[in-house]
């Protein structure tokens, strides 16, 4: 594949992801301290991973 074709393919893919993301839900990171925010982030990512695996 030529470099310009590769670039175009990559851009189209990212654009599709960004566009789909615009219509998706968003989950706020909660917590006042760094430890709380990390726990909040881990909770969101673990839930996403479970959902992704189930799908």
């Amino acid at each position, binding site marked *: 594949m030529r470099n310009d074709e590769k670039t175009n393919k990559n851009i189209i893919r*990212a654009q599709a992801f960004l566009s789909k993301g615009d219509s998706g839900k*968003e989950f706020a990171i909660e917590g006042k301290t760094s430890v709380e*925010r990390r726990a909040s982030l881990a909770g969101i990512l673990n839930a996403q991973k479970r959902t992704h695996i189930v799908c």
Partner: protein
Amino acid sequence: MLKSVPISFVKINQFFTEFSGEYGYDTAKYIDDLSDLIDKWIEAGCVEVYKRDDDKLFGRAKESDSDGQGRLVVEYIGIYHTRLRPNFNDPLVVIKFNEDAAGKKYVSVRFITDHNQLFGDFDIKHDAVGVRSLRRSVDAKIRHGDEKDVEDEKDADVEDEKDVDVEK
């Protein structure tokens, strides 16, 4: 020049894990790095945006609408990327600035990727085979252009001769 974008909070997009996975990144492995990045933004209450590479620093974001060689990528206007780990160019986190219903600005964290997958041939200047191929292609186009110019000149000469004949 640095631009500071004030933010009230950070949100993780619904497809963050799924899309990062498509790029080959397991988000579970980057919880600590991402957490450090989010802490930096929340504690500062803003995200600094830079244009020149000299200003790059962990926590700062860069507009993604330029591929690093000055070429505009219109599809990425309004998109930003930031390095996920200090002192490493890759991976990157792609983000957007959004506003909630109350008008509060926040960072929307979209996916983890890297320069190559986001910009494609970004690294062509470091790729000897790619550069040789690009040069051959440009040389062929220049040669073709030169030959066409010569043919056009010949055609123009013939046309001139015809014009002269007509005048006679």
